[in-house]
């Protein structure tokens, strides 16, 4: 992508006066000259479902008698016909899909969407805090790991970074992106500019002042980051973020997740060098009145599925570059509780979406929910370590070879999920 300023920099004397200059600048200059490293790269999009999604409700074993016993109020029957759209859709592989996820069905049928069941962390904790921490650091049982696994993934990409290489669409940097690789946490891209409320012209003038000052800053890091910052602003300024029109009639839910994915799509299509994106979906801690084909779970599921569906449609021809995965800290009890909900459990399931995904399948090993099969007599066990999934995705999609650096201590290999 060419911006006015990059042209100036690449064509003028600026690069010379800056000496070595930031690596990014060189890359931008190369990009101006023709296809270069700023060219399209693979993007891994991750959605953390905070609160622990009930994997048994999301992807239940079809017409399972035990399920109906354990969950007299929550178990749902599979739809007998297309007319029963509000029932669990039979995926034809022994599992159903909760109606909240209905908008993912076409992607399943197109075999772009895969499910991994009974996935999770080997650590037994049922604390949201601990389990999220372990999943985000990628080191179950170890709290001291300074970095998050997504940040390590960025570090292992092994090539120059764009300011938008790793972006979290959250107000604060998530644990997943703690670490040495640069990452940006932002909720609204339209605010990615020099701002002085009520005085836009003054802000613009001040922005030029800043740019000049940072270009000449004596401290190297401030100089190079300052330069990159103004490039980043430029990159975004060519897009009318506030009036961004999703392609292919995609309609994002008006929710924080819909907003986040819409902006991630925008970043992908703007070719700003995005490679790892992070978003959150909240409200999965369904202790109370979880509901069936409406209610809390249904609404959270619809928001997630509709957001993903819109995102995928919006990507259009860019789909090949993108792989999306969900994750959640643990699952919920196989039994429903006294208040129509479920409590903290162990194994759950996750979704993986991409054109290279071995889709239309439920991967992993589902041990069933018979009392004898349950973990501690109450939860779906974890039969697939989440690290086996993420190693596969980061390995095959982002080209990260060193699984041991990505997940220190993990020797369990990869779960085959992508056709490559």
């Amino acid at each position: 992508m060419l911006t006015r300023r990059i042209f100036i920099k690449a064509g003028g004397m600026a690069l010379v006066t800056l000496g070595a200059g930031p690596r990014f600048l060189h890359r931008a200059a190369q990009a101006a000259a023709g296809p270069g490293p700023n060219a399209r790269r693979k993007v891994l999009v991750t959605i953390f479902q905070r609160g622990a999604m009930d994997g048994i409700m999301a992807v239940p074993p079809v017409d399972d008698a035990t399920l109906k016993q354990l969950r007299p109020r929550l178990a749902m029957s599979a739809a007998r016909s297309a007319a029963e759209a509000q029932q669990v859709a039979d995926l034809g592989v022994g599992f159903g899909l909760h109606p909240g996820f209905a908008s993912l069905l076409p992607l399943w049928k197109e075999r772009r969407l895969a499910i991994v069941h009974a996935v999770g962390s080997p650590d037994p904790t049922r604390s949201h805090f601990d389990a999220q921490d372990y999943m985000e650091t990628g080191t179950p049982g170890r709290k001291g790991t300074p970095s998050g696994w997504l940040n390590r993934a960025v570090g292992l990409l092994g090539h120059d970074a764009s300011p938008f290489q790793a972006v979290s669409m959250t107000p604060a940097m998530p644990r997943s992106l703690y670490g040495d690789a640069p990452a940006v946490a932002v909720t609204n891209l339209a605010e990615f500019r020099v701002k002085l409320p009520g005085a836009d012209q003054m802000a613009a003038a001040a922005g030029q002042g800043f740019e000049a000052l940072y270009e000449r800053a004596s401290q190297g890091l401030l100089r190079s980051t300052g330069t990159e910052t103004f490039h980043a602003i430029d990159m975004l300024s060519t897009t009318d973020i506030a009036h961004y029109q999703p392609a292919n009639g995609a309609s994002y839910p008006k929710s924080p997740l819909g907003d986040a994915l819409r902006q991630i799509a925008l970043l992908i299509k703007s070719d700003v060098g995005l490679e790892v994106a992070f978003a959150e979906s909240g409200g999965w801690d369904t202790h109370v009145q979880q509901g069936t084909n409406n209610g809390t779970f249904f609404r959270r599921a619809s928001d997630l599925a509709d957001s993903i569906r819109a995102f995928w449609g919006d990507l259009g021809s860019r789909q090949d570059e993108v792989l999306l995965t969900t994750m959640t800290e643990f699952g919920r009890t196989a039994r429903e509780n006294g208040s129509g909900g479920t409590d903290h459990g162990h194994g759950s399931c996750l979704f993986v979406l991409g054109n290279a995904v071995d889709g239309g399948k439920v991967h992993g090993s589902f041990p069933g929910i018979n009392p004898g099969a349950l973990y501690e007599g109450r939860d779906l066990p974890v039969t697939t370590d989440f690290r086996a999934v993420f190693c596969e995705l980061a390995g095959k999609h982002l080209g990260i070879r060193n699984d041991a650096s990505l997940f220190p201590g993990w020797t369990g290999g990869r779960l085959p999920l992508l056709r490559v």
Partner: protein
Amino acid sequence: MRDRLLTGLGAAAFALCSLWLVWSAGGHEAWAADRRPALHMPWKEAGLDQRQAAAHLLNRLAYGPRPGQVEEVVARGLDRWVEEQIAGSLPDPNLQARLRDMPALFLSEADMVRIYPNPNMILQQAQKEGVISKDEVAAAKEAKILQQLRGGAKNPNLVADSTGAPAPAAAPASVRSNGAAPASAAMESREGEALRAKILEFARRRGYRPQRELMAQLLAQKIVRAAEAQNQLAEVMTDFWFNHFNVSLTNDRTRPYLLSYERDAIRGHALGSMRELLEATARHPAMLQYLDNAQSTAAPNAPTLLGDQLDRMPARPPAGYYPRPGWWFPGRRGGFAPRPPAPQAPKREKPHGLNENYARELLELHTLGVDGGYTQQDVIEVARAFTGWTVLPAGPAREQVEKRLDRVRQFGGLGFRTDGDFLFRADMHDSAAKTILGQRLPAGRGMEDGEAVLDLLARHPSTARHLAGKLAVRFVSDKPPRALVDRLAGVYLQSGGDTRQVLRAIVQAPEFWSRDAVGAKIKSPFELAVSAVRVSGAHIEDPRPLLDWVSRMGQPLYAYQAPTGYPDRAEAWVNTGSLLNRMNFGLQFAAEKVRGVAIDLPSLCDGREPESREAALRTYAALLLPGRDLGATIKMLTPMVSAPNLAHHVDQAAVPQDGAPAAAGKVVGKPAAEKAIAVEPARFSAPAGPAGSAGPGGSGGAGDGGSMAGSMASMAGMAGTDAADHEPARPVGGMAELTAAPKPGMPTPLEQVVGVILGSPEFQRR
């Protein structure tokens, strides 16, 4: 001659005596002012003048200078100022008066936990007292009620809590406008409302207060102290040690203890003995919960101290009456007459045996360092030594535990110990022998095990190096010279781990004053915000918008999730997103768009009106960046103020104001210093958002007219793209022109200039 000899002997004796005192008392009483060797700070040798040296000290040992403070420090004497800071005992009545507005700061730890319980605790208590039924407890565990009991999101810095439940009212406009997750149907119903009212009424009656209030006062005191405390170094070190022994409010179990942790475990030892600090953190419920030691127990087949104690009892009471190992968890290891757990008992995570988290971080982060020469086996052995170090539970469970402890006391204590909310449980403690770093701890001991480990670690050379390195990084540079770290480690060991002596060694080190070090540290977002408040003589009336900015720049306070604490190096703070926020902070801070902070820029000039705008620029740059070489900065900013028609153009740009509150007009004159600090609402009510802050979400930025084009053109010179656009600097107008807002609510040219200075690269450094 004789006299001189006597004097000499006396001096020698005195020196020996001091040395002995240092060794024996860990340096505690040895630093009475009259016995201290004089400081020698080699700033002259480094080519600095006295003002530059004072400014450097204020940037490193304090949160930056306040107006006129460089001169004050020079007048007082640099050595004397440093000694006062290291002693940390200057009287500070103004700060004390401000802190009195925050009553939670003065509660005992027990009261804190009792008055500001976790919301789940309130539900348990309500159920115990028969106010609500079991089903209602479950129904109430719906995010909205919990959030209301808490007073807002768990993390006052963040929008969503760890269960992903959004806090709608606290969300920034950008998120809020998109709608939060819908509340569950249950709570929208009338029964839901009734239940909510019942629980809130119960909480009110019992005198519970929303936890967010406690967190708000914790956050407020930190920023107010940093901005206003006389004992600045004590604040800097409290921040340093908190981060070193990090715990996080993102953890439910830790949150109620956070304020007490900083106040009781960290602050009192911030300028003192490392060994005492280590124990204070090791015993504090915040740490015990955060790194799970509270849940760490002897392995099922290991002997416990309680078992040993019972074996030693000469005459046993009748079986079934006395406690045996495992009695705390009936049934787990065949305890006595297991009482069936009450059906309504809170679901606790059952301990799974040994938990290594605290032990590992104690070695890796708190003491020896990652390359400190320990093995995984050492981690396990240390974890065994600390089994039983746990917490007296809060809430309804506490009574039951206290009853059990009373019973234990009838048998002479049986090795159990309590101290505040700290509890040592003999039944959880692995009493077999341990070998740690080659040192054997004999079998049959209790708390002494953990204390022996702390002794060993505090005086270990690896600890000395690790801490010396971290202190050098904080005070000198991101990559401190190895020779300096070695010297500081030596001082640490010689002084028995006395922080004050290490600090004295730092300020006397040539490396501290070297060209490579002065101005080389990037301010953390907190340091940036506080230094802006200090240098501009601003007054914090409501700290929340300022705290909001600190979060946005990447440092939500007390909320770093990892036990490592925030990394203390430039790369951690300076990336594309955060740097932009830092520039915006400077700009908006100077324009008083960071609400709750009152600034009077003209008064900084002390009534002396600069002759011209250029003079004003030079004056303010010197005021805001004392001791810095400002030639380049001023040169680049000059076109900005020298635009002949700047004010005129700005005036003509009749900008339609979209952010109405932003047009409230600027505070002129001295801020009301006596005004009580605004903290959180003190009662249970619908969660209120943070006080309005003109953050990035505050304005949609309506299109301006084109009349700014003239001034924009004159700015172009600043962008460095076309030097020919430079107009020669000439005196135009003066102070009045600079300080007049072109439109009500619009920043004045002076504010704009100050904003650019505060957002400039120079101000990012300390």
